[in-house]
């Protein structure tokens, strides 16, 4: 394929990665920013979202003969809600008991990772299972070509995308805008930002910090699950699919700046596009190497991340 269309294809692929990554990493950034804990099981919430999406859409199709579109919309609503419920239960049963202590939370969430993964293996099984997209038409993309001295549009071989992939990018943008509106323009967002800024002060003002923590943990998990529901009609649901998103989310959160959701989104776009372009032109492994190198550079030269801010406890 010529370089121009090849680059556009790479950027499209990278945009989808960036879109899903932005959602997942935003969830992780929220949890880290407000609870100040590292949730190693975050990738498993992503996986749960995908598995639940399969479960919802298959059950609706089998029991009620629902179309793929209805199944998908139901999954889009139910999977994040159920995942959030699981996360809030985990917060109540595990995290609250250990007092949100940073080191203990890392160990506890590693345990949570294994519990969720193995429970899914034992129920869902080791196979990958597909979820049908609500719509999916191939869109051939044009490319300007110089023919006989003037510009004309041609449709290069293999140069195209699908309507569903474009929808994923759009949906992620909508959700992220919604998240920004929530954080900036609602009382709930104000409460969350206050708790993030100074937990003890917030408590002094009568904010139920424990309840805010539970809600934020659930919201973080729901965002990851939402990202997974969007991506599962493109890939498939598999019990090990949480590993890659976990690694990339951590990379993005560190580069973007711990505690900064906006920085995380910018970093997700950067890493997603780089990953897409490098893996299309070179190899996926090289893309991961570059992402990890970027994190190392950031940790050495600018540990607070690109947009990180120092906040009082």
């Amino acid at each position, binding site marked *: 394929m010529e370089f121009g269309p090849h680059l556009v294809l790479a950027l499209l692929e990278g945009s989808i990665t960036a879109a899903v990554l932005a959602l997942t990493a935003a969830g992780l950034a929220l949890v880290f920013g407000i609870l100040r804990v590292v949730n190693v099981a975050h990738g498993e919430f992503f996986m749960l979202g995908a598995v639940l999406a399969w479960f919802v859409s298959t059950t609706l199709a089998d029991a009620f003969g629902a179309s793929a579109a209805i199944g998908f919309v139901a999954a889009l609503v139910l999977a994040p809600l159920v995942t959030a419920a699981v996360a809030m239960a985990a917060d109540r049963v595990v995290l609250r008991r250990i007092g949100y202590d940073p080191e203990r939370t890392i160990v506890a969430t590693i345990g949570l990772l294994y519990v969720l993964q193995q429970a899914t293996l034992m129920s869902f099984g080791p196979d990958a299972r597909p979820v049908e997209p609500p719509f999916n038409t191939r869109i051939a993309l044009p490319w300007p070509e110089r023919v006989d001295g003037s510009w004309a549009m041609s449709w290069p071989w293999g140069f195209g995308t699908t309507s569903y992939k474009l929808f994923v990018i759009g949906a992620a943008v909508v959700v992220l805008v919604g998240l920004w509106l929530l954080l900036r323009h609602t009382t709930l967002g104000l409460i969350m930002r206050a708790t993030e800024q100074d937990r003890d002060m917030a408590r002094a003002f009568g904010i139920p910090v424990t309840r805010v923590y539970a809600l934020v943990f659930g919201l973080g998990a729901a965002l990851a699950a939402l990202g997974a529901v969007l991506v599962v009609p*493109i890939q498939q649901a598999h019990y090990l699919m949480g590993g890659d998103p976990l690694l990339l989310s951590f990379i993005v959160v560190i580069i973007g700046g711990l505690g900064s959701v906006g920085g995380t989104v910018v970093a997700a776009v950067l890493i997603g596009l780089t990953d897409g372009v490098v*893996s299309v032109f070179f190899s996926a492994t090289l893309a991961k190497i570059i992402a990890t190198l970027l994190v190392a550079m950031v940790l050495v030269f600018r540990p607070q991340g690109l947009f990180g801010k120092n906040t009082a406890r």
Partner: protein
Amino acid sequence: MSRRLRSSLARTSTTGAPEPGRRRTLKALAAGVGTLGGAGTLAGLSGHVQAQSAEPIRIGFQVHRTGIGAAYGRWYDRTTTAAVARINAAGGINGRPVEIVAEDDGTDPKRGAEVIEKFEQRHGCDIAFGTLFSHVVIGSAPRAGELKIPYFVVSEGHHVASGMLNRYTLQPGITDVRSQVQAMAPYVSENLGKKVTMLYADFAFGHDHRDYFSEAIAGQGGEVIAKIPIPPTETSFTKYFPKIPRDTEVIYHVMVGPSVLTFVKEMGEFFGPSAPPIFGFIDSLEAVDIASPGLEFLEDTYFWEGYPRYAQTGPDNVNAFDADYREAVGVDENGASVSDARDVSTYAHMFGCWETLNVIKAGMESADYRGPQDRSKLIEAVEAMSDMPHSLDHPQGAKRFNGKTHQTFGHQHISKVAGGRLDLVHTTSIEDTLYPDEVDYTTRSF
């Protein structure tokens, strides 16, 4: 310090001897160890005494229950269970029932070697059997050679016949990639095109495809113009397709792993309506319904099938033993489970378990196998085998076993997708698939 505190810290009586509590514990421990030791000896003795006719023959089944081979493992398990049920119903092997001891290797080479050890050292198995994925075979076979346990693999990898492994590793029930691609090259070159782009799984099995098909198509006057390796753990494939050169005449694809459906679907999305002729190996769609959404573009493309998934009804294509075999393993005429039409089988590979177990039976009977002391006699008996006629023991077709290379040869099939089904269009002879020997394991010592 108070006296109470001091005495509790000291934990001894005033005489200095250990407390009665501790003495009692020591006694109990000694008694326990003695009992266990005695029981162990008794068990060992009784085990030795029981090693006679009623004792079952233990076959260690190294199965991919989890990992990238999980879909194959599920069907290998069902086929093995059915084959053993049939053998036991007919009286077992040398009057002894067959017992399968299954262990999950996670489709992981390191765990594969550990599983072989467990078969030999913990379960007391007579032989090991059943591995499919080539990298697991390569990781496990050396350990089998060290422990001197016969290792019957059902793998398709060329590594057995290449001489890379050892005299304890055999593949008598399924053909290998080199013979498959060699037989496919003439058909591809004559019917589809001479400039081939290969998309293959990036590990031992896929490398066999890359190396031997390149050689075979060159022999037909063709050429592989691009080789695109894809990791079997990959989940997103669109990034690989732009590497396909525009002047490709034939796309050749062989993928494995849980995401094969995504691979084929995204290939269709990439090409749209202007796909070149496609020749794939059914591995890219094993356990996947060919009528899945997004796979419509596969109509009129071709597949290598080790064993045709759909029951063939054309007068030239009917397999006399297929119906009974399908019933025994629980597969319907569309290649799916009789209890769940959505559970599509790995029909092109699982027959290898059925046929290998029948070869094991024939070998053990020919060698008058009594126990692990007869393992080398068993291997020699299998090495002496050659032609295996088409029968319910070998439902895929007649086989020709090469005792020197430990590899079997058989008929290969090409099918075309028509109306959402796979119709058999060509069957090769066994001669089409033969290649010169690369090793003579019979010259190696045990």
